[in-house]
């Protein structure tokens, strides 16, 4: 039985803290882009409330959806960015030649992501509520499982994306940044899943965020959210985390077997 050493996990978190603290270009994106999203969608929803005669309040539907989606994106990017710091600094040989285990390394990335995504979440909450009047009273206690499922799926996708970059080399990071945009049409962030063609709906059912956004619209419409659906979304997210960790471990072992860790900048060892 391997013993987890918290000092090693703390080292990964501390490294990320030092980097953010000393770099405006790392600190700024933590809150700037989500703030821009809040402002943009805040005005769009205000405009929609004025020009449509549907009687719908678009603020909780769209602005709330953007807030939740940006939170998910921040969590995923929080994990991948913490991982990319080792890619950018060509630090794999130093870091993986220490006693650090893969579990400890991934735990450090996840804790770094929690810290950075919380900054974004707080900024979004302040802007959405103070400037655009988004009220979370409408979501009630369901906001907690909504955020939890999105958080878990963000972690899963972040670890899986890191495994891809570890396997394919530094240039493959460009595959990673657009992943949330690729997922969003299937997740039904802005529209009910029933809007999608049937083949897309099958994919949606495999995505935990789709249960969150369906649930969010149900809550806003005043109906009761299906607890079992949301629970299934949470279970899927946990399954994906386990799968992502398995993938990362497999890729790491492949890198150790082939010598890629020691020659990572070469991208391949063949």
């Amino acid at each position, binding site marked *: 039985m*391997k013993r987890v*050493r918290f*000092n*090693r996990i*703390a*080292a990964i978190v*501390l*490294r990320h803290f*030092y*980097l953010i603290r*000393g*770099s405006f270009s790392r600190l700024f994106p933590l809150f700037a882009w989500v703030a821009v999203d809040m402002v943009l969608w805040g005005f769009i929803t205000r405009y929609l409330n004025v020009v449509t005669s549907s009687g719908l309040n678009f603020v909780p539907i769209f602005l709330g959806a953007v807030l939740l989606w940006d939170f998910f994106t921040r969590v995923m990017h929080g994990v991948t960015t913490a991982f990319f*710091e080792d890619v950018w*600094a060509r*630090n794999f*040989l*130093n*870091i*993986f*030649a*220490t*006693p*650090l*285990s893969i579990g400890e390394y991934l735990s450090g990335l996840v804790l770094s992501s929690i810290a950075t995504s919380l900054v974004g979440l707080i900024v979004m909450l302040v802007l959405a509520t103070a400037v655009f009047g988004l009220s979370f009273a409408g979501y009630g206690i369901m906001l907690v499982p909504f955020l939890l499922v999105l958080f878990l799926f963000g972690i899963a996708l972040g670890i899986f994306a890191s495994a891809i970059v570890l396997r394919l080399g530094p240039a493959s990071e460009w595959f990673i940044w657009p992943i949330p945009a690729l997922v969003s049409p299937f997740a039904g962030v802005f529209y009910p899943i029933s809007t999608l063609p049937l083949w897309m709906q099958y994919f949606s059912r495999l995505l935990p965020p789709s249960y969150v956004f369906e649930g969010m619209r149900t809550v806003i419409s005043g109906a009761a959210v299906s607890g079992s659906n949301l629970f299934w979304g949470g279970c899927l997210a946990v399954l994906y985390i386990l799968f992502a960790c398995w993938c990362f471990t497999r890729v790491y*072992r492949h890198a*150790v*077997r*082939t*010598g890629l*860790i*020691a020659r990572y900048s070469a991208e391949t*060892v*063949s």
Partner: protein
Amino acid sequence: MIGIVMLTKALSIKDLRKTYGALVAVDGISFDVGHNEIVGLLGPNGAGKTTAINMVLGVLEPDTGTILIEGTDIAKRRSWVIERTNFAAVYAPLPGNLTVYQNLRIFGLLYGVADLPGRIEAVLREFDLGKFRGVKCGVLSSGEQTRVGLAKALLNNPRLLLLDEPTASLDPATSRDIRTKIREFTAQGSGGVLWTSHNMYEVEEVCDRVLFLSRGRILLEGDPKTLPGEHGKESLEELFISVAREGLEAG
């Protein structure tokens, strides 16, 4: 307890082999590094020295063979073993976007160093890095970065220290200081050192024993001061050139 530890070797390698496709990088080598011993691993470029070191560090998996550090198999208890090991290599500088102190603190935590603040101050003093503690490693000269790497390597008082061309980018005066420090490290503690270098003068001065590696095999082993004479050569450098050529021709 100390007696039990001293019975084992700092490093014991047996039948270690690594291939990359058709290329045999390391071909069944076996050797030991004792406590308080500095062993030089010599050989031409591509001989397999760095491959061997990477396997000892656990970042490269051997095809076959065993690596025991302090008598414990790295394949079975990697974290425990690596906690007692450390390395410095000219091709693995510490992250340039962190300061000297930040790097030492992070790696001190990773290696589980006891009394970390005190230990950091000690290595900063030892390698004359005090004035650079708040400076980012990326703006240091290559020699200063090498000293930071060595400070990191000694942070956890390793039982096995792996040095891959540690003085390659240093001026002669600093190189001599580093050699003295590594000598002191083995004399004062009970750590063993595996040292690669292409500077035969340095090897002769610092190593207790040398291994000549060529095309993944150990061709010669012995005392660097007497080995050239035993093979009819005047100097270690002459012997190195001869062995490297013969190794290539044999290949």
